[in-house]
């Protein structure tokens, strides 16, 4: 019999479950940020998702942009969305994509209206959406109903010794209970990529993985740059990680011994339950933005040297096993696992503590990243605009 992990969550019209209840103000282009920000100051509790892009993007880059923006609005942590843009065509494309989830969506365009009138229109709709969202109840939900994600960041060798294996045991338990988990960081598998490939359940998905991996590594090789200092980065080197292979072997311990159901493009929603690898960079703000756009409602970030990352759409649980980091940056962590590093606490006991925290956060306990207002929303841009 599998363990039932339950919490009080928000059941959405499309059957998904969220752990937060945001009213989102979603600007389509960077120049529409101002209206979203204005309204976020006027209507208490709204979330303006500001970003610099959305102008003259094309091809694969535009496809990814639409997946990110539509996915952000569709995320189960979002109760209702107002899409704001300069012209109606891209506004409609994003708003219609979000409407498919059945949640309330409104749209406003600024051209031939101006910021001031649009601000008033959006504010009045946001007020209505806030009343509506505030009466949506939290109801019993299961870990099975949600999409989790995990990332390690500003890593050092304490990640591979303790922090990541603790996440790994929680990933194994969550998968055994029937939930969905996302992980990524394509280039950061280098040295251990064959182990990940060997864990993918089907040959078809293994082929896709190798295609993604080689394409990404080819792109990096084409830059003809020395990566030492970038990947591994300066924090990794300072913390004691020497090579990409060493970093990779620490990295992959965060999925435990789990098998992988398949691979996803950046910001692609998983087509089923289980463990999914997403093709991403290893930059934390980019990766978490892509996970959230794919429907992840909660993310576990294991850090060694101390990443301060958060995400506006989903709570981020941050943990470290490095005693120096836990002491010097205590306000950034939800869990301090330095006693696991010193062998006073077992990985399994650490897993119990993390699972407990995960269910508490899912039920409403705020994370360090939330109270410190870390709202990094960083859409990935694949190439220059036209």
């Amino acid at each position: 019999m599998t363990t039932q992990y339950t919490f009080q969550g928000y059941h959405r019209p499309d059957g998904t479950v969220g752990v937060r209840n945001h009213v989102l103000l979603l600007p389509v282009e960077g120049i529409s940020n101002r209206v979203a920000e204005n309204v976020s100051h006027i209507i208490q509790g709204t979330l303006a998702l500001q970003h610099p892009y959305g102008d003259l993007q094309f091809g694969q880059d535009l496809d990814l942009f639409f997946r990110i923006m539509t996915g952000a609005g569709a995320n189960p942590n979002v109760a209702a969305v107002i899409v704001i843009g300069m012209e109606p065509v891209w506004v409609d494309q994003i708003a219609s994509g979000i409407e498919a989830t059945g949640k309330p969506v409104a749209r406003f365009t600024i051209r031939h209206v101006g910021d001031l009138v649009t601000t008033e229109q959006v504010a009045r709709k946001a007020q209505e959406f806030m009343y509506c969202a505030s009466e949506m109840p939290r109801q019993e939900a299961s870990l099975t109903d949600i999409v989790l994600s995990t990332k390690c960041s500003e890593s050092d060798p304490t990640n591979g010794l303790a922090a990541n294996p603790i996440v790994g045991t929680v990933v194994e338990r969550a998968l055994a209970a029937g939930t969905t988990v996302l992980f990524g960081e394509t280039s950061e598998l280098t040295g251990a990529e064959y182990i990940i490939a060997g864990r993918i359940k089907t040959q078809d998905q293994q082929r896709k993985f190798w295609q993604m991996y080689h394409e990404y590594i080819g792109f990096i090789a084409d830059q003809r740059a020395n990566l030492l200092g970038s990947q591994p980065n300066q924090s990794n080197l300072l913390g004691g990680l020497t090579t990409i292979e060493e970093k990779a072997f620490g990295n992959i311990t965060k999925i435990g011994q789990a098998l992988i159901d398949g691979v996803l493009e950046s910001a692609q929603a998983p087509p089923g339950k289980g463990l999914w690898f997403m093709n991403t960079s290893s930059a934390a703000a980019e990766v978490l933005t892509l996970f959230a756009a794919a429907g992840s409602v909660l993310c576990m970030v294991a850090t060694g040297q101390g990443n301060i990352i958060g995400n506006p759409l989903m709570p981020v649980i941050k943990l470290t096993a490095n005693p120096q980091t836990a002491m010097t940056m205590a306000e950034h962590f939800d869990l301090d696992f330095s006693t696991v590093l010193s062998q006073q606490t077992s990985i399994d006991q650490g897993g119990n503590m993390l699972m407990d925290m995960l269910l508490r956060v899912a039920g409403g306990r705020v994370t360090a990243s939330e109270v410190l207002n870390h709202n990094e929303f960083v859409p990935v841009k694949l190439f220059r605009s036209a």
Partner: protein
Amino acid sequence: MEPNLLLHTSEDHAGIAITEIKAGEKAHGLVLADHAPIELDVSEDIPLGHKIAVRTVSAGQPIILYGHPVGKALQTIRPGEHVHTHNMQSLRWP
């Protein structure tokens, strides 16, 4: 004695200091895979999180961590020495 050095597997060429260890001090190592103890003299100051060689690796030879090659030695590395970018390099992105 509480360990101040952890090794992932018994095949590993280096362990990771989980406290600062000064030159001349002893490392009390523990192998996580089988809980075997290892003792050695440390010849350089080692910051927390950094690697200490537990066996000799000749120049050009692969360095094993997690039971797998994760780089190569740029020069001969002896037990007790600090292992980092000055004497170790990636096999994949040199």
